[in-house]
């Protein structure tokens, strides 16, 4: 059995650790609230822009030349946007996405020429380098509460890759925020834009100057905004995952402290018992 002093020092260090993880949980909780709010305030924009895109896409005649972003083409090369965090200590947050990425890549591609990765977040970037996956763009050090301008350049370049036919498909992998206790690893095909829901278009819009030219500017913005939306959702997930991880850590620390306190008391009691029996032994030897 460990000595009294050893147990004591382990209790002290676990207590300190518990304080740290509890503090980190609180920090993550408040960051999560903000991140969720950010994601909410984006939603309005995302919904509206999708509505307009759907409107225009549906109002165009079938036989008209479709915009390349709405038209699926043969996929020779796929771009993957992978959103991870910059720091760890967030439970399975990063490993879920990265595992999903590896799986997808292994299933769908036989050579690294067939895909490229756009990494957002340090963990994903380091992972890809370690696994020798081709990374064409990356952002490291994304703020906790990113604004649209933080991501705009990367989003633009990525969408441009599709327009220039460097990639024929753009998929985004991230943790979708469902609730504070549930985040779902999601892959979403951003380009070509195919998942426009059918909706009843009652209104006949005037288009100024015309649909094609509007689509020309609207679609890249739409794709960029989707990337931003995913990032916001991922940020909310990150803080939620970290919060849960830290809460678990705090609970575990508490359990360990309890166990250690028990064995500390036992050891202390044992020592006292031993001392008493030694004294009694000494006394009886004198008699």
């Amino acid at each position, binding site marked *: 059995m460990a000595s009294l002093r050893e147990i004591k020092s382990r209790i002290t260090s676990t207590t300190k650790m518990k304080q740290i993880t509890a503090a980190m949980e609180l920090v993550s909780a408040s960051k999560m609230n903000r991140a969720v709010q950010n994601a909410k305030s*984006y939603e309005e*924009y995302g919904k*509206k822009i999708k509505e*307009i895109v759907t409107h*225009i896409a549906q109002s165009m005649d079938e036989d008209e030349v479709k915009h390349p972003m709405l038209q699926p083409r043969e996929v020779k090369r796929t771009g993957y946007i992978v959103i991870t965090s910059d720091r760890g200590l967030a439970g399975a947050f990063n490993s879920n996405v990265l595992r999903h990425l590896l799986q997808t890549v292994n299933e769908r591609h036989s050579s690294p020429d067939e895909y490229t990765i756009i990494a957002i977040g340090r963990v994903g970037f380091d992972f890809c380098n370690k696994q020798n996956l081709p990374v064409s763009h990356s952002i490291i050090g994304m703020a906790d509460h990113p604004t649209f301008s933080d991501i705009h350049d990367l989003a633009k370049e990525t969408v441009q890759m599709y327009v220039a036919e460097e990639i024929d498909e753009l998929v985004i992998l991230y943790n979708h925020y469902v609730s504070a206790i549930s985040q779902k690893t999601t892959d979403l095909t951003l380009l070509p834009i195919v998942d426009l829901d059918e909706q009843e278009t009652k*209104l006949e819009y005037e288009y*100024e100057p015309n649909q094609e030219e509007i689509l020309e500017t609207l679609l890249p*913005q739409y794709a960029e905004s989707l990337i931003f939306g995913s990032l916001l959702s991922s940020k909310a997930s990150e803080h939620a995952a970290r919060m849960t991880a830290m809460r678990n850590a705090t609970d575990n620390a508490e359990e360990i402290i309890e166990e250690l306190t028990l064995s500390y008391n036992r050891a202390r009691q044992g020592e006292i018992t031993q001392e008493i029996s030694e004294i009694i032994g000494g006394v009886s030897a004198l008699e």
Partner: protein
Amino acid sequence: MNTLSVSVVTPDGSVLNDQYDMVICVTERGEIGILPNHIPLITPLIISAIRLKKGDQIERVAISGGFLEVSNNELTILAQSAERGSEIDVERAKRAKERAERLLQSKQDNVDFHRAELALKRAMNRLDVAN
């Protein structure tokens, strides 16, 4: 009298949400004024100031390009960024303007002139709206 309910939304959240009598925007083809009961319309906007008229009051909002959608007396402006005149950080806009000007004058090959030009336009637009 009828009014238009106007909302200006950006990816970073809603900037403005109110009733106005008339809205004047700048499209690629020139200025367009929207009054209540306008037919449904979708049109792109350039980097410019939107003017919102309520009574005798005119409010100005700087936007960095975007879209205008009108339907059922509801006017939505989707912009990548938008700032109301009273909320513009003049110092920051001035700095952005100087930076863009420096880039444009630097005559280096690695400078993206198109982007610098857009940045200059945005900064000047914001300064214009702020004053």
